[in-house]
């Protein structure tokens, strides 16, 4: 058997699966987004009509779509920087020569990452319960009166952001820690001889050297955070007052509650374009900074 034939034979099962169950549906989603596929079309395909850009135009005039977009941006714009800052802080602590029991701390801080979102969301819902939650109880000691974390439209999204940061920071922490460990030690030694403080070393050595890793982490995290779904599904059902309805939550309800599958496909595609655009912007912004340095 020639190596070329063997190669094709080895890749074809995987390619077939990915082709049929991923590439084909993605293409179909694009086509579907130009139709009015709904419950009637689900029953009988004769009811299917081509509507061109109708779904997209319609969506841009739907207040709930804009609201879900706004909520998702809130989650991304506050959540991503906060999450990366916490990850960086934890990574710096774990990288410090002064830290003891590094193995234990690394495992403890990473543990939330491998837990099941739904299960820990259930815990947090209880943790942040207005009347019986430990969080309000603890805040009571410093004189803060109970906050209705998940029931107040102003607090619901911040609570979900806190939850997401708690759940996810360990992932980026590991990547950033590897980035920190790759920085040559002699750079720090030279700085120390010059008498540079910790903060000066951080600003002039650590952060510039960490920049490629940070860009990678920022892109992965942003793309992930745009896909917010399980947290509001379990913790708030998108409420109160739709304050936590994300784009994907909106798509899920359009598609699988109201069976407007054409419209839901248009939502999915708009989200995809959004993620693509933001990723491209970040790459461009990140690389431009590199040239200047």
């Amino acid at each position: 058997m020639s190596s070329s034939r063997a190669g094709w034979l080895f890749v074809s099962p995987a390619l077939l699966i990915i082709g049929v169950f991923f590439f084909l549906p993605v293409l179909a989603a694009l086509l579907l987004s130009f139709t009015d596929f709904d419950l009637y079309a689900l029953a009988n395909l004769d009811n299917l009509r081509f509507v061109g850009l109708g779904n997209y135009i319609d969506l841009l005039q739907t207040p709930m779509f804009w609201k879900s977009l706004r909520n998702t941006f809130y989650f991304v714009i506050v959540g991503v920087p906060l999450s990366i800052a916490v990850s960086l802080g934890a990574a710096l602590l774990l990288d410090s020569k002064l830290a003891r029991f590094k193995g234990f701390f690394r495992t403890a801080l990473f543990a939330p990452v491998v837990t099941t979102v739904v299960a820990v969301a259930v815990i947090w819902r209880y943790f942040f319960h207005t009347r019986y939650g430990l969080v309000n109880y603890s805040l009571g000691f410093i004189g803060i009166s109970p906050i209705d974390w998940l029931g107040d439209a102003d607090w619901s999204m911040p609570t979900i952001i806190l939850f997401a940061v708690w759940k996810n920071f360990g992932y980026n922490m590991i990547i950033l820690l590897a980035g920190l460990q790759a920085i040559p030690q002699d750079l720090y030694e030279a700085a120390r001889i010059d008498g540079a403080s910790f903060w000066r070393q951080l600003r002039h050595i650590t952060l510039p050297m960490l920049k490629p890793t940070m860009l990678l982490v920022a892109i992965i995290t942003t793309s992930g955070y745009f896909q917010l779904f399980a947290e509001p599904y379990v913790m708030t059902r998108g409420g109160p007052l739709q304050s936590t309805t994300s784009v994907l939550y909106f798509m899920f309800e359009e598609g699988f509650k109201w069976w407007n599958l054409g419209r839901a496909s248009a939502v999915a595609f708009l989200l995809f374009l959004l993620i693509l655009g933001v990723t491209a912007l970040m790459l461009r912004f990140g690389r431009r900074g590199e040239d200047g340095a």
Partner: protein
Amino acid sequence: MNPRLAKALVNGLLIGFAVVSLAPLLWMLSVSFMAKGEATVFPPPLLPSTLTLANYRELFERNGLGRYLFNSALIASAVTLLSLAFNLAAGYAFAKLKFRGRENLFKTLLGALVIPGQVAMIPLFLLMKSLGLVNNYGGVIVPAMAGIFGIFLVRQYARSIPDELLEAARIDGAGEGRIFVRIVLPLLKPIVVTLAIFTFLASWNDFMWPLIVLADQSNYTLPVALASLSREHVMDNELMMAGSVVTIAPVLLLFLVMQRYYIEGLLLGSVKG
């Protein structure tokens, strides 16, 4: 700064981080052993007054948790085994076997990593419906039988296999299938373990797709069942915490035992540059 003070600060902050990370999980465990209603008072108790397994018993006897546990274990195991087989073969071929169009094909796959999986979900649901796989284990297992990320991970690792080794086996007259099984697979063992843990955890924790494709309660996986239970039993905190323990414990234990492999895989997967 005074070095002793600096040391206290660094370790103190790490302890703070560890407390915040672990407290919700430890509290979940504690509340799961409390009697009904014990945790629904103010101030919330930290430890149960007496240990009881009543919540677990109720979940397994009356809420069918055993069934969901079985579904989750079966689906995650099937996905892990099948996707390992297909991803290993493809990843190895992309790294070591020369065939026409290899580079372009691989670039296309990598490019597709930016497409969020949810874009495919609606047509995938219709496809599954026409194949009779809605509301059936197959609906979750079949689309997950191969994955771009898994292929990428295997390819990264397989590139370090020396070509001379494969050439020598070919000169000895070994077929490609035999070379793969006898020579390549043993060398890929660390990445097999890594990928197996990754896949199992991801499949176990997956929520949105099983929620869509599994309509009938008896086929629910643990996360889908837990989400549905938590909507019915909003006030039964002790019961819900026990359900969370059953959902989280298997993956958390798997991670603790195999964390070296898990972390290596995470790093290998993120340095794509």
